[in-house]
């Protein structure tokens, strides 16, 4: 798809939605309103927005434990996401999944995933399904630099390669696999180089540049839709927050964090849009206002929603069996 005003405006809207959603989640978590664990996407918005702007509703994405951004960018609704984070019945998963398992199959979102690298194997199945049915859908598989050391990464790239599956592998290299820096967790500098090992193209892109991400993905998506097989895209980016909320972050030098905060993808994209006349300052303000309203509504929706009835714990395990409560 040729980059145009509609696309850039949607990209900006989604980046702001992600940022606002994550900042809100951060506060609610700190206030004790979100149980469990939280892995925020803040700082990586240009990747999800730039990639997903190339996708149709019937395309698939496979996400990660740091998945909120992908889900928002693929069209996930903030209120159902927020309700899920709070463990409410109205959430995407009726409160059974939480932050790490949000999915919306009707929008092609095959789920966040709590297991690092597991989505890579699942993307092979989604890609196979597309290829088997002979449609021109694509599947985008998001994963991190840490995942690229998992066996699943290597198995998936190899199988997608030999079967020419319509998968775009998007590595969000934020420099750290949990607390271990890339320099310590692998010897290669560019994860994109690993594509060569499986005979598929590997491309490095500035992951904080939404336009660059969009353009690189456009090429990979076209290739996939044409039946020419998978591409590995490495987006170099940085997470503004810790591996998880509460992570003291002692493993990241302060100067490094500062330098990356200065490269924040959102003001950068806003500046670009204004400079090239794609969005005016007023339009940007209007989008920011829209997002603020959506977030307010999402919080109200989530907070006012009931918790699921505990008896529902035994439902949805199977399509046809409800486990008996007496089995305890």
């Amino acid at each position: 798809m040729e980059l145009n005003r509609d696309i850039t405006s949607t990209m900006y809207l989604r980046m702001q939605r992600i940022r606002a959603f994550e900042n809100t989640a951060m506060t609610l978590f700190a206030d004790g309103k979100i149980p469990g664990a939280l892995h925020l996407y803040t700082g990586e918005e240009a990747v999800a927005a730039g990639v997903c702007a190339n996708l149709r509703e019937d395309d698939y994405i496979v996400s990660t434990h740091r998945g909120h951004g992908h889900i928002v960018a693929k069209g996930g609704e903030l209120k159902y996401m927020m309700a899920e984070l709070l463990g409410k019945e109205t959430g995407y998963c009726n409160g059974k999944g939480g932050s790490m398992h949000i999915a919306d199959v009707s929008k092609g979102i095959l789920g966040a995933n709590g297991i690092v690298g597991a989505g890579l194997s699942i993307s092979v199945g989604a890609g196979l399904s597309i290829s088997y049915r002979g449609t021109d859908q694509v599947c985008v598989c998001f994963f991190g630099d840490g995942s690229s050391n998992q066996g699943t990464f290597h198995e998936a790239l190899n199988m997608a390669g030999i079967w020419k599956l319509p998968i775009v592998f998007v590595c969000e290299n934020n420099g750290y696999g949990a607390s271990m820096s890339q320099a310590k967790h692998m010897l290669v500098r560019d994860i994109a180089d690993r594509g060569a090992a499986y005979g598929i193209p590997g491309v490095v892109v500035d992951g904080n540049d939404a336009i660059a991400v969009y353009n690189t993905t456009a090429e990979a998506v076209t290739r996939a839709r044409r039946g020419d097989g998978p591409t590995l895209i490495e987006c170099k980016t940085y997470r503004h927050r810790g591996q998880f909320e509460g992570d003291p972050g002692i493993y990241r030098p302060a100067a490094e964090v500062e330098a990356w905060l200065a490269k924040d993808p959102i003001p950068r994209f806003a500046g670009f849009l204004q400079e090239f006349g794609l969005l005016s300052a007023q339009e940007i303000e209007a989008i920011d206002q829209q997002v603020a309203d959506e977030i307010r509504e999402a919080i109200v929706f989530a907070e006012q929603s009931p918790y699921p009835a505990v008896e529902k714990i035994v439902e949805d395990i199977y399509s046809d069996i409800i486990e008996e409560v007496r089995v305890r």
Partner: protein
Amino acid sequence: MKTMNYRDAIREAMCIRMREDDSVLLMGEDVGFFGGSSGITAGMFEEFGEKRVRDTPISESAIIGAAVGSAATGLRPIIDLLFVDFMLVGIDQIVNQAAKMRYMFGGKISMPMVARLPCGGGAGLAAQHSQSLEAWLTHIPGLKTVYPSTPQDALGLMLSAIDDDNPVMFLEHRLLYDMVGEIVDMNPIPLGVGDIKRAGSDVTVVATGKMVHEALRAADILANDGIALEVIDPRSLYPFDMDMIAKSLEKTRRAVIITEENKRVAFSAEISATIAEEYFDLLDAPVVRIGALNTPAPFSPPMETYYLPCAEDIVAAVRKF
């Protein structure tokens, strides 16, 4: 009378569904051109072509993931993992993905996949190719597990497994592949319905897989002493037909459970515990549980024979009642 061996029965069921439904496909190592490592898929590549009978690289996580992802998006994949032992290489995809996706997503996804898991000892294949891992699978909410002991059951259970919208783990004992049996009908056998392989009134013997045949052999031996064993094959380990066992115990009041698993924390322990918790009043004697020794499967033939449970173990246990 129509007969078939266990191997052909499994293949026949897969072929029936593949002819009826284009969304059914088979994947795994050696399943295609080669015809399956145990000859199970012979002829399927020729009939259905490489798109539907797909050879895969040796990549268990990706094979199982290919099933998970394609089942989540409209296909009904069957995967052949060659050995239940190899499932362990990609176990995350079974336990954390296939089993839990429906639940984690609030019931908004289906996972119609079948994993064929050839299992069991007695073939001299030693510790990494002989295991019985029923307990690993039945422990996990979200999985269904079946284990046919006859060609008829293999055929009927495979049809049901393919029809099921949940992940079904299909255990098949490799030493049963050549076993010939009568085929009475070509109907699906509902999961969760056991079968009385031999009626009797003195002792209930619950047996799975190849051990069903050991139980039947024990029944023959003990019949000479005037002791009538009732041999129950649950066929499906989850869902599980506890009612059939309870009904039998009302008559016999004694139970022997035999599976080929290492006895420690085996699925047989779950059956025994359920009898103790819920049907204690039906018992006149403690439940007897028979399994393989708590060792890895040994290689040397006399050692392996010593390791595996057999009919004589049942006979000895029954004589002690």
